[in-house]
């Protein structure tokens, strides 16, 4: 085989690998959701975040508008502080917007859901959402249910 042919085949091989990498990066991984969009940060305090994780989606009306970027525990107020990056194009959330932690499906992943309020002012970079509702923890609900059952029987 001539060295010209070999060089062409090696070039095709490398090109195929690069194409495969781009296919995996763009089509299969979350690279496209990193893509270029500018974000602003909001935070919210919850009593209990359940199974929420960093990179969990933040959605409003079922549409993903951002992601959770950090979760800390505030040991003075005994609350979990969830930091979220919201895409800048969704910057018209009133200041009395409520943030709740929902579960997709019965046992699915947890996400933060926004329900817009009615104020005239909008949330901006660094604001804290006050109206929050914690995650429903299945064990607690079952526990409460059993207690109430036991009370009824007495």
């Amino acid at each position, binding site marked *: 085989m001539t060295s010209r042919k*070999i*060089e062409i085949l090696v070039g095709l091989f490398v090109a*195929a*690998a690069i194409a495969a990498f781009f296919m995996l990066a763009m089509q*299969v*991984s*979350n690279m496209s959701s990193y893509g270029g969009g500018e974000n602003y940060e909001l935070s919210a305090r919850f009593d209990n975040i359940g199974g929420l994780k960093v990179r969990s989606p933040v959605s409003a009306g079922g549409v993903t508008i951002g992601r959770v970027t950090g979760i800390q525990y505030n040991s003075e107020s005994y609350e979990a502080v969830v930091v979220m990056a919201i895409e800048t194009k969704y910057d018209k959330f009133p200041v009395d917007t409520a943030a709740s932690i929902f579960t997709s499906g019965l046992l699915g992943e947890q996400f933060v859901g926004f329900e817009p309020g009615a104020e005239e002012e909008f949330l901006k970079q660094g604001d804290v959402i006050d109206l929050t509702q914690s995650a429903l923890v299945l064990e607690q609900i079952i526990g409460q249910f059993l207690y109430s059952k036991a009370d009824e029987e007495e």
Partner: protein
Amino acid sequence: MFSGLIDRVAHLGAATIHSFRRLGRGSVFLLEVIASCASLFTRPRLLIKQLYSVGVQTLIIIVVAGLFVGMVMALQSYYALIDFGAEDSVGVMVALSLMRELGPVVTALLFAGRAGSALTAEIGLMKATEQLSGMEMMAVNPMQRIVAPRFMAGVISMPLLATIFSAVGVIGAYLVAVELLGLDSGPFWSQPQNKVDLYLDLYNGIIKSVVFGVVATWIAVFEGYDCIPTSEGLGQATTRTVVHSSLAILFLDFVLTALMFTK
């Protein structure tokens, strides 16, 4: 009776010393190879030629294997997940397992079998027919001329092959899940886009395949360079290449997974 026992103990000791000696020789050899790799910058043509025989010629088996691994995984995970009504997760399951584990590992095992054994046999035969000593006589350093290009070609080819393997596997899974089993193509692509992380999954998979490439090629060229220059010794060296690199790959995969994917 006692002398038989003592003989056995002595034999065990000799075998242990022998294997440690080989490990030491192998490590020194690896350093020598890395030092000789610098000379490749002045002679890229040698590298291109080896990239062809190590990388391009391994490509067909990688593509075929990747396609079928992806197809089988889609089929199996479909039957397991449909009981829970979670068959939409076939895409993310196949993509994650391919990028994290199967892509690098299966590619490395096939690579050790296809390219590693060929490297050992080639270099071993050069040693047996005294081509390597002939080169030294002509003041050509066989490390720079023979070993370094092959080593470097292996290290470069492995991540490329593993990436192609994963991509082809995902396409195979798509063919089975969407075209054959009739799943919706929306969740097949959108679930991985939500759950597969570019850095954590794709980049770590590539780091894994680079490590496997270094280890598999190192073992292959060392076994060839160090073999007993007879037809029997050459055969043993080729077998050892495949066995040792497969074991090393599986062991390292466990170590790397434990390091990368635990929080």
